């Protein structure tokens, strides 16, 4: 806790000052992407990391959030920014229905079913042209920030990311977090000590999916264009999972580190190596999985005895 009281204010000042330190539009764009993925990775981690339910369908929730903004912009006179509230409200019943079906399955079967859900949502978006514009997509007219400055977007996504990570931190220290970890470790044991595993998995999915939809709603308002290949691809679901695995599953800091490393390196590699960037991305993943079981967080802990389990508990 003492260490946090030193580092957190420094990090806070840096995050608030960042758009003035990095003044080019491109570097600000990269910062916005990094923070968006910090939020997405952390949101996924509640279900995938804490509760151990490896969803590879989170693009569905992201896409529904993004399409909420697109539909608000194209079919109503409301600002697409309302999607940050409306997106999670649309996603919630869908997520609960998905959970009701998919949580009957365990392990790899659950994961496969989430991939199917992701593809179903993508195909619906592709074919329901009256609502979604089909493969052509939807162009969103900017509503609030009509200028070209990226700074307002930076601060909005900063708030989303900080609130998401703070929520993860809070959950990890409370009954909900411990119950989700118990479910991850052994569902029968969890039942035997009074944990309603179905209910708590649904709670984890509801929180995770809603936060992911907020990310999607922001994305649509930032890019001002939505189509199925951008906001609903399987690759997006996979990328969210990879960030958490590389950073460290089930830890609060893991998805944050993973998002920073993967997003920064993929931008650098894209510039330096063009199409070879995916190759390097893959190599990075293999290196982390081989040499750092437990992800970067696990690796750091062993290297520096940094935030060891013992220290964590004393401060809890």
């Amino acid at each position, binding site marked *: 806790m003492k260490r946090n009281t030193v580092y957190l204010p420094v990090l806070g000042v840096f995050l608030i000052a960042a758009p003035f330190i990095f003044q080019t539009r491109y570097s600000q764009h990269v910062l916005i992407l990094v923070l968006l993925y910090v939020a997405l990775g952390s949101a996924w981690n509640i279900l995938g990391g804490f509760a151990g339910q490896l969803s590879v369908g989170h693009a569905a929730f992201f896409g529904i959030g993004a399409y909420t903004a697109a539909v608000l912009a194209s079919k109503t006179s409301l600002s697409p920014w309302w999607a940050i509230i409306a997106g999670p409200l649309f996603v919630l019943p869908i997520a609960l229905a998905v959970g009701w079906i998919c949580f009957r399955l365990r392990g790899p079967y659950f994961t496969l079913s989430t991939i199917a859900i992701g593809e179903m949502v993508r195909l619906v978006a592709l074919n329901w042209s009256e609502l979604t514009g089909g493969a052509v997509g939807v162009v969103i007219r900017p509503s609030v920030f009509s200028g070209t400055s990226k700074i307002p977007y930076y601060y909005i996504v900063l708030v989303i990311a900080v609130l998401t990570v703070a929520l993860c931190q809070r959950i990890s220290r409370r*009954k909900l977090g411990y119950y989700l*970890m118990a479910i991850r470790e*052994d569902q029968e*044991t969890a039942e*035997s000590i*009074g*944990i309603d595993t179905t209910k708590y998995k649904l709670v984890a999915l509801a929180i995770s999916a809603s936060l992911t939809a907020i990310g999607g709603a922001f994305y649509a308002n930032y890019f001002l264009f939505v189509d199925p290949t951008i906001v609903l691809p399987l690759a997006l679901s996979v990328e969210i999972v990879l960030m958490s695995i590389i950073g460290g599953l089930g830890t609060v800091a893991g998805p944050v580190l993973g998002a920073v490393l993967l997003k920064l390196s993929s931008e650098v590699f894209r510039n330096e190596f063009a199409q070879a960037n995916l190759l390097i991305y893959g190599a990075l993943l293999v290196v982390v999985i081989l040499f750092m079981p437990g992800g970067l967080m696990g690796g750091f802990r062993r290297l520096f005895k940094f935030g060891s*389990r013992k220290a964590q508990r004393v401060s809890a």
Partner: protein
Amino acid sequence: MFLLEVKDLTKRFGGLVAVDSLSFNVSEGETVSIIGPNGAGKTTVFNLITGFYQPTRGEINFNGLNLVGSKPHKIALAGVGRTFQIVKPLRGLSVFENILVGAFARTGDRREARRIALDVIDFTDLAPLGDSIADGLPIGMRKRLELARSLATGPKLILLDEVMSGLNPTESTEAVELIRRLRDERGISAVAGVEHVMHVVMSISDRVLVLNHGRKIAEGTPAEISSDPGVIEAYLGK
């Protein structure tokens, strides 16, 4: 009024009758042993009482509640704790966290849950291992952790599946002592499943049930059971 009443409990798996018309009662603060050779149906009885299996026929009443048809977590919250024969620790969590998760069954408050967990970790003498990850513990400690995690939920009755299997003589003595203290200091009833006629376990039991092929073949005090010809036959053959 019994704490646990089991009447005519029967479980069929296809053609196999794993538990056959079993009836028994457990009073408040009583320790009962169920002994029987491997395959006698002890684990099935525990899985039926805790809702992991549904009975083919029969009644299970606990503290005035009908447990048949209830889900395992509801039965746990009603006050029936259990341990697993093949221990199932929450592997990635520490010993203290394992117990803490159990304590959250009684309260949503973090401080209160920690207080309960600290009490249980002291009672079970696991405090020196509090920060160890459950996965690396030796079997004796894992068995004790099973009991501690269940105890933290605040049960009135604990079902201990094969408490003695895999333990060396020192660990067995410690385990028996812990079960005795469960009754004497906490007033918690226990049903202990034991494979062999072990005098150490029988010595602390108020009553002993003997199962063979899913049927109750004898019931009585430890002294009566050790001299019962039917029991001797079940273990040693005719």
